[in-house]
């Protein structure tokens, strides 16, 4: 696979303040990569380095194989970018704003631009300063999408959008990926990443702590298992099984967390008369929070 984005020990410091530290990342062509982390973790700093808005203190970043500090314009020609926070020209209408960005880029199909405006339900005749937060976000999204870029870099793209428009946005993202384009999506809304992304990376305190496929990442977190027996069972037997933790016995019910394979638990339960069995798959959010509970900052990358 072709790495559209690649970073090597990418570091950015703001004087004595931490930005990002030794970030090694690879995003492949045609995938939706979710970049997750809470506020201040370093998501936006990474994006700004990728687009050469700021320069790395150490390390390298490549987009389309081009060093970001060497020929950023060549990168920008093929990128669509939506910043997390932005403002545009107050006196221009939404339509004029889109026209201006289309002129800056060139090669925008007016029909496609119009279709995006229609799908996002944007009124292009109003001045930018008169738009609500959500409508401003729509202008930014159309400006980022209208030239059908090979790489979409979207920082918190659904902020301010209503659920219907969010659905439209995800549909457009799916179409882009279907055409072989790549999406790099930063978010702290985990359900959004879970819904849209093929792989996610988790950044914590400026360090990339985990990169994996969404489903594989989910497997890393413990399943919540509840076993209901017809009679009392020895809880200690289950607590000693590999991957089992936090066993709680309540009358005939055992509750526990199971990390990894659930097979030993099922085999142990089969030795007793089982009335009911419930296993809940962990959400990405639980995985995310579990990762944040870890002390180690080592990167685990399993998904390529």
């Amino acid at each position, binding site marked *: 696979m072709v790495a559209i984005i690649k970073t090597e020990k990418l570091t950015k410091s703001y004087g004595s303040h931490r930005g990002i530290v030794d970030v090694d990342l690879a995003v492949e062509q045609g995938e939706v990569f979710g970049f997750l982390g809470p506020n201040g973790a370093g998501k936006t700093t990474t994006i700004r380095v990728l*687009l050469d808005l700021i320069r790395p203190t150490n390390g390298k970043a490549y987009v389309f194989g081009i060093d970001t500090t060497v020929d950023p314009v060549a990168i*920008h020609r093929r990128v669509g*970018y939506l*910043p997390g926070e932005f403002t545009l020209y107050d006196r*221009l209408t939404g339509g*004029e704003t889109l026209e201006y960005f289309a*002129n*800056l880029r060139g090669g925008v199909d007016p029909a496609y631009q119009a279709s995006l405006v229609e799908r996002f339900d944007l009124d292009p005749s109003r001045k930018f300063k008169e738009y609500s937060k959500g409508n401003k976000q729509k202008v930014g999204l159309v*400006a980022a999408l209208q030239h059908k870029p090979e790489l979409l870099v979207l920082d918190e793209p659904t902020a301010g959008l209503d659920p219907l428009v969010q659905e439209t946005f995800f549909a457009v993202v799916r179409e882009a990926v279907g055409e072989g384009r790549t999406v790099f999506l930063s978010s702290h809304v985990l359900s959004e990443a879970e819904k849209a992304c093929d792989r996610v990376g988790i950044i914590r305190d400026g360090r990339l702590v985990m990169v994996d496929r969404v489903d594989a990442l989910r497997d890393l977190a413990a399943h919540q298992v509840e076993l209901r027996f017809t009679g009392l069972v020895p809880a200690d037997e289950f607590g000693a099984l590999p991957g089992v933790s936090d066993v709680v016995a309540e009358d005939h019910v055992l509750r526990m967390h199971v990390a990894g394979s659930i097979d030993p638990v099922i085999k142990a339960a089969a030795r007793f008369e089982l009335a009911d069995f419930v296993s809940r798959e962990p959400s990405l959010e639980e995985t995310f929070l579990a990762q944040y509970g870890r002390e180690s900052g080592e990167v685990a990358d399993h998904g390529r």
Partner: protein
Amino acid sequence: MAVELGRAPFTSTHRRLSLRSRLYGLGTVYAKTMRDSRRSVLIAAALMGGLMLVVGAAIPTVYPTQAARDEMAKLATDLGAVAQGIAGKPVNVATMGGYVQWKYGPVFLFVAGLWSILALSSTLAGEARNGSLEFVVTSPMRRRRIALEKVAAHLSVMTIALAIMAFAAWLAGAAFGTLPGDAVPVQAALGYALWVGLLALAFGGLAFTLAPFLGRSAAAGIAGFILFAGWILNGYAALVPAFAVPADLTPWAWTANHLPLAGQYDWVSLVPVAILAVVLLVAGIEGFARRDLGAASSIRTPGLPAATHGLSGPVARAFGERLPTALAWGLGIGVFGLVMAAASRSLADEFAKSPDLQTTFRSVFPGFDISTAGGFLQLLVQLEFIVAGFAAATLVAGWASDETSGRLEMLLATPLARRSWAVSGGIGADLAVAAMTVVLAVAVGIGALMAGSDAVTPMAGSITLGLYAAALVGVGVAVGGFFRTSIAAEVVTLVVTATYLIDLMAPALRLPDWVHQLALTAHFGQPMVGQWDVGGIVACLVLAAGGLAVGGWGMRRRDVAR
């Protein structure tokens, strides 16, 4: 949980503020506004206090003997009504206080008035627009209380700055006075500060009242226009009878006989100004309390046609974005230029009757012949350099707003290189300067035609204002590109102020010629009479083009700010 409607579940009768909150101005709206004003109060106090001391120190140097003072006073009196458009009423001009009142009396009001206009127009309307006020308004405080605390804070910082200015006036008389009558009594210093403060609050109050309805910019523009127009109308009412009626409607005319630094008091005249200020401030508070928050403009202001918005590329966009500001400056300077040019011949004739006065003016503006219409207009251009400079500063601020507002991130994510952005924006600002220059030059030309003079020479001479502004745009782009855009306009303002003071004060203080030569405006010759200095033009072009090149180069090597 059951909630009892109509009654707060928890009541706090006493709010205890921490020492830290008190010290850092985070305890009340009043304290926070004071905290936010600390930089502006320092600048205003330094400007007014410093100018008072500099002028006070200069007078005994330029006019060291009683005979020289008497001669200067005689000239001021002989000049009569003609000079009132430039200076004020000549009362006790032979004393330090009288001279300051005559020659610089309005200058301090311009500083305080503009400060008050900008502060009061933005304290609520500006915060409402950017959303910060919503957090304050949704706290358990009535809107009237919030507005009142903000106004009270402005009154407090204005009082501090004016007290420093009054102290400087007293100190100048005590420290630099060399002749009888040079001492400035405390009563005179306070009387002058009170006049400055009340008029400044009246004009600031007008901006404060209009801001919730028209928005910050329009309110500040209208109040600022009335501040300057009132001064011109009042100054030339004696010469132009048509000016008399509108002039009488302004506080300038009401307080025309209150000249405290000259030892002439008219305390009663300050009462209607105080009432006007209070009425306007109360109206502003009520307007804020009753209207929708942030609904700034229900009155549609005319805009430029969409064709001027400039969507074809970065240069056109930068020009389109700066054009309304440039046209406003061009019209403002142009209207003043038109009036002066129309009156230039008759004013020059009056100056021609006083050879001694011409000699005095030559000590400040060497080589100027103000007995001719062209020479008089050249004097006008020298005074307008500072206005054109401030125009350039606003255009630089507009260029910088791409980065300071966060717009630049989206622009640079297109195939627009950093250097191209900086240079294109600079060229757009220069084109806006050109538009401003065309407007003001046409206005000056019309004025000259009305006076029956040659129009082409003063129109061509007006180009120097544009050249100077273009050079300053170059300085601003260089600073913004090389260091950061957030300081570019401030640096340009500093350069403009320093240049103006050097050009004006160096000859008067008989400082070495090389000091005077530091001012770019000293190198244009006298283009309003057809005498051009190529050196100044070349310097402007080099600064304009070189500044853009440096700015473009600088942008390549630094991070883009958020």
